[in-house]
């Protein structure tokens, strides 16, 4: 079954050493395994609210996170857990948010992927799609005016592309010529709405270039290595003063929109194609095998990722629930007398 997956092209892979490829693998595995755990906990009724997964898109978040430098900042959305991990966010922190624990990144105040870790330069997702676009443009503006060689990044999907804030942010970025990178997740659907019903020309890269004058490349979002190559290059162009950059990553949302959604409205042939032949983890594993990686090493990578996830879950489960008496703490950063 795994073997059926199309291996990542050899020439791309050859650009990098084994370490980077293993790191991409590790991040994707952490992402996949965390979400599998989260779904199981959700079905057991131990996680409230809803659960959104990035299944089938793990390559993008991992590659984007690794493409950033230590002082860069990012505002991920909810299909990019691997980006959090690349920044040094821990599985315990992720589980702590899903489980609404007092020691989690939002102290139980927000749930699922709605969290950030300030110390890691990660801004917490807000649900209102589009809002994070002007936000990261502003961070990039600050870097530019302070002459700091730093870059900001955010992500959005084919659905969020329609929101007015995205237009305002893209145009500000272009006119102010700031070091920001936009990673566009073209995964076929916005909730139940296919990309073709979200925009007339489904190429977000063409739209971003034609509408706002921002250079944009389209790449295969199931290929962790070419995703890394393209996003890394965009980050470095931005850092070098070439202004805003965009990378459109084509993939498919394998699961429904969220845990409650079976996605039966989806194109099931395309879904099967991505599930059985274009799984980003399997595609990288296939490449590593063809490049002669030792099966034991690959097995070890998977079991250590699993161990890391299990340890994180165990730690998060040991944390207390938040104390209602603390609910109003921190409404203000400068409390009033």
């Amino acid at each position, binding site marked *: 079954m795994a073997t059926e997956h199309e291996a990542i092209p050899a020439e791309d892979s050859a650009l990098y050493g084994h370490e980077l490829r293993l790191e991409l693998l590790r991040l994707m595995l952490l992402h996949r395994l965390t979400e599998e755990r989260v779904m199981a906990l959700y079905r057991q009724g131990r996680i409230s*609210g809803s659960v959104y997964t990035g299944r089938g898109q793990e390559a993008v978040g991992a590659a984007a996170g690794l493409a950033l430098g230590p002082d860069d900042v990012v505002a991920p959305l909810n299909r990019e857990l691997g980006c959090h991990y690349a920044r040094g966010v821990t599985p315990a922190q992720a589980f702590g948010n899903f489980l609404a624990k007092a020691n989690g990144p939002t102290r139980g105040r927000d749930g699922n992927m709605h969290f950030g870790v300030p110390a890691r330069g990660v801004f917490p997702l807000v649900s209102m799609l589009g809002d994070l676009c002007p936000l990261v443009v502003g961070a990039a503006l600050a870097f530019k005016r302070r002459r700091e060689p730093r870059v900001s990044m955010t992500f959005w999907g084919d659905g969020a592309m329609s929101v007015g804030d995205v237009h305002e942010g893209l145009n500000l970025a272009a006119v102010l010529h700031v070091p920001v990178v936009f990673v566009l997740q073209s995964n076929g659907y916005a909730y139940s709405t296919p990309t073709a019903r979200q925009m007339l020309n489904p190429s977000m890269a063409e739209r971003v270039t034609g509408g706002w004058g921002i250079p944009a490349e389209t790449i295969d979002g199931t290929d962790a290595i070419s995703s890394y190559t393209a996003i890394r290059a965009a980050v470095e162009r931005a850092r070098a003063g070439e202004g805003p950059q965009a990378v459109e990553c084509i993939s498919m949302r394998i699961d429904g929109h969220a845990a409650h959604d079976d996605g039966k409205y989806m194109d099931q042939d395309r879904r099967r194609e991505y599930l059985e032949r274009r799984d980003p983890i399997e595609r990288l594993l296939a490449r590593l095998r063809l490049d002669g990686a030792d099966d034991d090493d690959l097995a070890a990578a998977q079991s250590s990722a699993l161990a890391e996830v299990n340890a994180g879950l165990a730690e998060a489960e040991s944390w207390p629930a938040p104390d209602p008496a603390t609910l109003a703490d921190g409404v203000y950063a400068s409390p009033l007398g």
Partner: protein
Amino acid sequence: MAESTYLEAIRAGMVDAMRDDQRVFLIGEDVGHFGGPFGVSKGLIDEFGAERVIDTPIAEEGFIGAAFGAAWVGDRPIAELQFADFISCAFDSIVTIGAKTHWRSGIALPVVIRAPYGGGVRGGPFHSSCPEGFFAGTAGLKVVCPGTVEDAYGLLRSAIEDDDPVIYFEHKGLYRRLRGEQPSPETRTPIGRAHIARSGSDVTLIAYGAMVELALRVADQSTASCEVLDLRTVWPLDREAILSSLARTSRVCVLQEASESLGVAGHVLSLIAREGFELLDAAPVLVAAPDTPVPFAPELEDFYIPSVERVEAEIAGLLGY
């Protein structure tokens, strides 16, 4: 007589209105074959087709602005938000075009904005809020919050037939929990009129939305004779109904799911302070959520949302007066 949930009553209200009036259509995100995030519009596209059940890209300001445009040329659109929280994204169009156009130029804009709101569903800060207070107080808008199955239907039909923009806040927590007799197609709930859901003589409990259920539960259990006034329309307020209930009970407790300083309690208490002062034997009290966003953790949200115990404690205080 057939039974209906609150959600089914909303769907029936849309279906009956669309059957009665070709000018009525539904517009929003994923409202078509998917039926919306809560399935409220499930099946509508099969009966009315894609020209009257219109899926849009993600653009709240855009499709609500478009609804006003369709109303301008004679339609009576229903615009559905996936969650009321996202009404912040359409705020400008609502207060700028929706609220001011008829006063400025005599063009009526009969648009109903359906906004699924409220907590208790573990939605966290962005999927649980009660934003009615952002609009209550704005001249030109009408804001309704049905708290019963009958009003879910009756207020929706009245809102669709009303010539002004009406924001219809439907409570997510009541969708399937609240059951009642299936409203007849003639059912209309007059906009701007509160309703005495329970009459009593010791204290008036003023409530709306999901707090009506809570107030009635308190009234059932209480040794005091509680009058429950269901505002139904939270803007503009039914001044007479509020003051005449106070005249009867001379004690009042305002219940609100929204945080203390949002919602409509401020308007109600401001009215009471100015016009009900002499009617009262005790200072009015408020039971509302604290002034924070809606928390996600069950331990926090259960503390956050007003409870029977908190209302009972306030009533005890009022009567011990």
